[in-house]
């Protein structure tokens, strides 16, 4: 039987949901206009006043917020409450090295954790479950979000963070974890490690997994489900709007229900910015309807998706989004971490290298491989392997500091990075990320 965390919202009549969204949007636009000079300027430039927004039907009148705005307004420019009202920040990488910092009041944390709680309950979670959170903790939203959601549901929460896989499996066995939350590639890795340790899904008690923060395919879902003996659920979110839990999968596994009481979703044409009708493929745009500290209006996610409100067998009335089918910018998601090629370029230049580089990505045994090739100059070349290896290590470490993940570095000879029509091919992505 399908379970709900907040049935009155998750299964509310659509008209009721829409009325709630209208009321919240009007209030939110006023809040932002009054407290965020940066967005007020954008609205003024477009000639829109808060009173022009009477319902979500008017939302097209509002200006978009993009990643570039977050960079320009860093760190406090989009903050809508006094800093003293904030209780937390979370952060993610930005386009050119400057990170995105999102602020939360206690109310914002509560609503975010509620969203995650809905996802956990949709995956079958109850207060009797043992929920192992193997997303990274810290600035990354994965760990804190699911940790909070797990608390709200009343599960026994294991705040494992990611890594140390044998210990993960040991805790899983000793404490009888029933729900696993992590990136899908880490789930696949845990599955493989389980097998390497000579164990089978019968040796653990897991029944469900909530996996997100990176794209994954149906084939990968089947692999994970078989290797861990679970049902695997997708979860979507982004730091800019709160974190994981903006949308989540139900038992039907045919898309993710958007928590519409908190987030209003639109699909736009990424080139013209025009709003597209339901069912058409385009860029997903979110408006935070009731976040206080960092309420982004019409934030362009750059994820390409489709929305649909077909009746779902789970009983939820919340609109569903497809798995993201791609990006409308050059952002890469590597092992769950957002990476922009421009960040790599920034580090190379800082370290005295040429901006002639190539990123090669692949997925081997369901884990992303991340290789960076960089051309060396005459001055950087040394006749000893030791020196070259040391330089590669230094660069990898500088990139790790910037990106949060470790690339495998390869220093190469000049002019070996393929140049096509004068423009270098920066990224070779051999991963199959989308169905």
């Amino acid at each position, binding site marked *: 039987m399908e379970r709900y965390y907040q049935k009155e919202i998750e299964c509310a009549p659509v008209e009721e949901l829409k009325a709630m969204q209208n009321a919240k949007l009007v209030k939110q636009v006023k809040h932002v206009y009054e407290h965020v000079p940066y967005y007020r300027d954008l609205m003024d430039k477009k000639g829109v006043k808060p009173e022009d927004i009477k319902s979500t039907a008017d939302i097209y009148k509002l200006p978009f917020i993009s990643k570039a705005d977050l960079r320009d307004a860093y760190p406090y420019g989009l903050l809508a409450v006094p800093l003293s009202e904030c209780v937390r920040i979370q952060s993610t990488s930005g386009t050119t090295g400057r990170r995105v910092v999102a602020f939360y009041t206690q109310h914002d944390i509560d609503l975010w954790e509620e969203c995650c709680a809905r996802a956990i309950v949709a995956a079958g979670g109850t207060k009797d479950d043992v929920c192992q959170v193997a997303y990274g903790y810290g600035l990354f939203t994965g760990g804190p979000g699911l940790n909070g959601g797990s608390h709200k549901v009343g599960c026994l929460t294991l705040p494992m963070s990611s890594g140390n896989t044998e210990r993960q499996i040991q805790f899983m066995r000793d404490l009888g974890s029933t729900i696993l939350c992590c990136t899908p590639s880490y789930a696949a890795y845990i599955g493989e490690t389980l097998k390497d340790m000579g164990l089978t899904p019968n040796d653990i008690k897991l029944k469900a997994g909530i996996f997100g923060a990176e794209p994954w395919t149906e084939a990968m879902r089947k692999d994970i489900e078989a290797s861990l003996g679970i049902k695997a659920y997708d979860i979507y979110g982004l730091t800019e709007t709160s974190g994981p839990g903006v949308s989540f999968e139900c038992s039907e596994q045919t898309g993710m229900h958007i928590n519409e009481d908190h987030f209003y979703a639109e699909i736009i044409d990424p080139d013209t910015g025009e709003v597209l009708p339901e069912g058409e493929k385009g860029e997903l745009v979110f408006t935070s309807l009731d976040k206080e500290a960092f309420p982004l209006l019409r934030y362009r996610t750059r994820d390409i998706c489709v929305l649909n409100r077909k009746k779902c067998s789970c009983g939820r009335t919340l609109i569903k989004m497809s798995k993201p089918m791609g990006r409308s910018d050059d952002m890469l998601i590597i092992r769950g971490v957002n990476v922009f090629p421009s960040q790599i370029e920034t580090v190379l230049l800082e370290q005295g290298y040429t901006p002639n580089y190539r990123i090669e990505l692949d997925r081997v045994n369901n884990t992303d491989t991340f290789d960076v090739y960089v051309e*060396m*100059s*005459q001055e950087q*070349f*040394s*006749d*000893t*392997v*030791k020196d*070259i*290896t040391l330089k590669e290590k230094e660069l990898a470490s500088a990139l790790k500091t910037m990106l949060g993940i470790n690339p495998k570095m*390869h*220093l*190469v*000879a*000049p*002019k*070996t990075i393929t140049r096509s029509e004068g423009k270098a091919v920066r990224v070779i992505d051999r991963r199959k990320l989308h169905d």
Partner: protein
Amino acid sequence: MKQISIFIENEKGSLAAVTTLLAENGIDLRALSIADTTDYGILRIMADKPEKAHKILTENGYLTKINEVVGVKIADKAGSLAKIINALSDEGIGVEYTYAFTSAKPGEAFMVFRVNDNEKAIAALEKAGIGAVI
């Protein structure tokens, strides 16, 4: 002695391309050694015209370095190499790499040593009664 190091990608034909280029320019190779990794190799050569070889390689876009290494004439008998290495090691001189080559004269062989401090290495060898070839 001047040694030339050349960075070569680990792909078919790259060693042939370098050696052909040198041959076409009348450079005679006296010794050669390759350090290889999974990604690349470092080709180290002793040539009759090192400056010219360096210039040609650089002009052709190769990552190339010319540096002084220590050459030692080595006798063809047991213990010769050990004596040299011990002389260096006794003075705390680390050897990055070494390789051997024979000269045009029959029975004459040399060792090449890449060390962190050439001056100290030469002094150490002299102290041990082994002459260095510069």
